[in-house]
């Protein structure tokens, strides 16, 4: 009899606990929607590298905010070498614009915009006529409005570099 009473009290307590939590306006734990498909993107960029010697891939993680962001990657270059770069943006929930410059952001004096693209994957090459020892890739990440369910939107951009110095 006493055991039955304890069990029913426990059941009641559980219901009250749940109600207490929800009535007090408890927030759902923030979810994350990560669109990054790193392995697939890496496979895609490597395939595109031929006939250059594949050097490496670099993944830039992106968390969308309610304001615009620019992420910059700087790549060192060496003379007498031809380079090929493949940028893959398939692991992002929305499109981004990619701009390539000869100088770093915030320090530009008469910069040269080498190219820009909003494609999911694109390629560009630099040969011996490019007389700079760095190239700067800017990922222009647009703002995303906050949603009611407060899901954080994430993704990644995969960049592959390759070279020819034969």
């Amino acid at each position: 009899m006493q055991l039955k009473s304890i069990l029913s009290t426990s059941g009641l307590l559980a219901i009250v606990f749940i109600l207490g939590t929800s009535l007090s306006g408890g927030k759902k734990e923030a979810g994350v929607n990560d669109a990054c498909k790193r392995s697939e993107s890496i496979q895609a960029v490597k395939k595109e590298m031929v006939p250059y010697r594949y050097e490496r891939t670099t993944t830039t993680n992106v968390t969308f905010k309610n304001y615009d962001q620019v992420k910059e990657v700087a790549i060192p270059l060496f003379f007498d070498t031809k380079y090929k770069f493949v940028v893959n943006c398939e692991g992002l929930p929305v499109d981004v614009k990619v701009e390539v410059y000869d100088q770093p952001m915030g320090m530009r004096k008469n910069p040269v915009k080498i190219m820009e693209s909003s494609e999911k994957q694109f390629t560009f090459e630099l040969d011996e006529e490019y007389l700079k020892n760095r190239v700067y890739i800017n990922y222009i990440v647009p703002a995303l409005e906050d949603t009611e369910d407060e899901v954080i939107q994430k993704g990644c951009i995969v960049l592959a570099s390759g070279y020819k110095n034969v």
Partner: protein
Amino acid sequence: MLNSLSSYSIAAFLLLGMSLGSCSSDAPSESDASLEDEMEVSETQSSMDDIPEDNGFIIPSAFHLSSLFQKSGLAFSDGLVNSPENVNQYGTRMSKLLNFGVYSADLFYCVLNDQNQSSRKYLKAMKQLSEEAGMGEIFNTKTILENFEANIDNQDSVLKYVLQIQEQTDDYIEKTNEEHTAMVIFTGAWIEGMYVSLESYSTGQNEELGKRIVEQTYMLDNIIKGLELHPGDPEELQNLATELKELHKSVSASEDYPKDQYEFHEHTLRPEEIMSFKNALSSIRTKLTKNQAE
């Protein structure tokens, strides 16, 4: 008695439930905070007007550097490389990572010069250091080592397996968000590559090699920043960064040193300036490989 206990319990649970609810809505929970931390660590994001120059610097591969030096006339000399027998000297994680980089440069130097028996020893030393530094996953794929051994007389295959190891290292670093570790490894490889090239330059003063050496000094600024930003400020890395700063200061003080940091400069310094640079770098390399930096 039980009834009274139950009413107290109900009130207590109700309070607890409400307080937990209000905690989650008003203040960030520990899990929220750690989520935010993770984002800050894993990203290099900034707002439009707040971008440091070296945000997201992409480190070249040690193999690329080795092949550039070789193309510029770097000849093979057995006595220049760090002996794989030194592998047990490195006690701290930082010295293991730095010398993992040193051995990777030596490995590429051997592979590019068809020294495949020596390459095998470097591969084993790198495997040992990677395990001791907590990166054993890189060599977990037994097939790489087995295939390397089985094809040791085939230059193309050896190169393929060695590059596979570099790829696995990159993969491990990206998966574990250890980009700062990549810079430590690269620093070791860069110092060793430069040391071997400078030693070779000192015997013949090959002008092409001299240009390549000067070109590589443009990397110093990024290397120093990378070491200074390493989480936890390990003393070894801070000391190394200080020494590299001095090195950078001395080489860039030359009148012939290019002042425009963005332009390609196929100019070399005067031989005596390169030799002075060589002496300073050799001293840093000796500390690193003889483990005098700990």
